[in-house]
């Protein structure tokens, strides 16, 4: 039975990087509707930096996550990028000293990251942010220990959460002031997470 290792993380990063080519302007476009139009370019840069970080020789999963967190932090100070780095730091803390974790530990890892991101950013579940997508995926992979099933469920959950929030309004940031305008469009952070899950879970 397989477990999550540093190699899986490296593969996920490569997958994400490959996906960003097409995603960059799609995410910029989504962000430009209510925000400042930079989500895609920011994530492209961030993921490029993750890909540059050589994690092959890291002794533990924790060290890998930590190295990636530091790379992410160096790449940006945007909301989403910083939350992303916060999630990676949490993952690092939770995997101290471990070379691999079973797939069934992905759900608690995601949940803990989500909580850390909530604490850092001050948003709540239901606010129509990246948090809701992480939450949904965490729930979907809960208890699963088979990588194929995990991938399947994660992808499915991504579609579900996107659809569910499509007609909701944003409740954080300046967008909350113009709640109506955010109905009928995807939150760029949520969209980014779902699309990257799709890419990584091929």
């Amino acid at each position, binding site marked *: 039975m397989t477990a999550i290792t540093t190699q899986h993380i490296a593969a996920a990063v490569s997958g994400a990087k490959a996906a960003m080519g097409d995603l*960059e*302007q799609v995410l*910029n*476009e989504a962000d*430009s509707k*209510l*925000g*400042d*139009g*930079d989500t*895609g*370019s*920011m994530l*492209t*840069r961030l993921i490029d930096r993750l890909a540059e970080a050589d994690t092959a020789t890291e002794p533990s999963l924790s060290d890998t996550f930590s190295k990636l967190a530091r790379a992410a*932090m*160096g*790449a*940006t*100070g*945007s*909301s989403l*990028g*910083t*939350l992303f780095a*916060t999630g990676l730091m949490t993952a690092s803390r939770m995997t101290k000293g471990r070379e691999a974790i079973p797939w069934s530990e992905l759900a608690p890892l995601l949940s803990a990251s989500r909580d850390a991101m909530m604490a*850092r*950013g001050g948003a709540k579940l239901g606010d129509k942010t990246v948090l809701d997508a992480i939450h949904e995926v965490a729930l979907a992979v809960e208890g699963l220990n088979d990588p194929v099933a995990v991938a399947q469920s994660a992808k499915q959950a991504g579609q579900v959460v996107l659809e569910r929030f499509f007609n909701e309004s944003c409740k*954080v*940031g*300046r*967008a909350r*002031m*113009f709640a109506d*305008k955010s109905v009928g469009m995807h939150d760029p952070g949520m969209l980014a997470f779902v699309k990257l899950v799709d890419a990584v879970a091929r």
Partner: protein
Amino acid sequence: MKKLLNAPTAYVDEVLDGLTLAHPSLVRDGTAGRVIRRASGIRSGKVGIASGGGSGHLPLFTGYVGSGLIDTCAIGNVFEGPNIDSCMDAIRLANGGRGVLRLYGNYGGDRMNFDMAGEFLEEERIHTTTVLGTDDIASGTQDERQKRRGVAGLIYAYKAAGAKAEEGADLDEVTRVARKAVDATRTIGVALAPCRVPTADRPTFSLAGDEIEMGMGIHGEPGIWRDKLKPADAVVDEMIDRLLADQPVTTGRISILVNGLGATPLEELFILYRRAAERLRQAKIEIVQPLVGNYVTSMEMAGASISLHAIDDELATLLAAPADCPFWRVP
């Protein structure tokens, strides 16, 4: 939306190189070169003021590093907050032993990174306080004032805090006047045309050829209404009305900033100022040290913002105190 640039990803670093080459009073510092500090360094015994924010708003933020203003500035990519390292660097470099005021706009990324920087720096025992600019009245209702974004009016907080720090005041005092300046300042903007983030392939928003948007944010975030272009006086009247409704000027005295967003010519700013001054005169509000020009921009965005900074004797004295940076000088 043509731009004179080289690689879009090199934009910020090339801008900072040019800025510091042209203005030797500013130097690049910090691990990634993403802090601008005074060439002279922090004066020991002075409270430091560290600011920061995303690129694309020159002269804000980095341009206001100078005497009587801020000491250091962490700078991020275009419309992205500065990263944690830069925030830490900016705080450390502003530390002259009497503590550091962190004074920046109320944006998610900026806040998270300055917060994390503060946590990391706890063991270094640098005493810090935080004041956030929240002057944009279109970005939150009255009862959510603390959620509002900081825009052009932030420079009044720089001025007040900078003057107080230069006087030799302690961190609490510098923090108090920064907060007082923020509380006394309101801004509203109107956009005529968008800008484009260098790495993006289209503008941050689109407006028809005859449309304007009242209340738009400095990153192109949605405003209060979008409608046909109106005469300048009508636009100014609405802006002044909204500003005064949000904050009645009980002191009878204000400074006003008629700020260009980037692509709007000075001529138009003076047309706006003319009307604003007329309206304030009618309201029996005295104008002190008016500012008209491009003080806080969004690259090539077209439009303008008006900020009113209501002053009492203390704020008036701080506003009039000497200050000197490449883009704002009070003799």
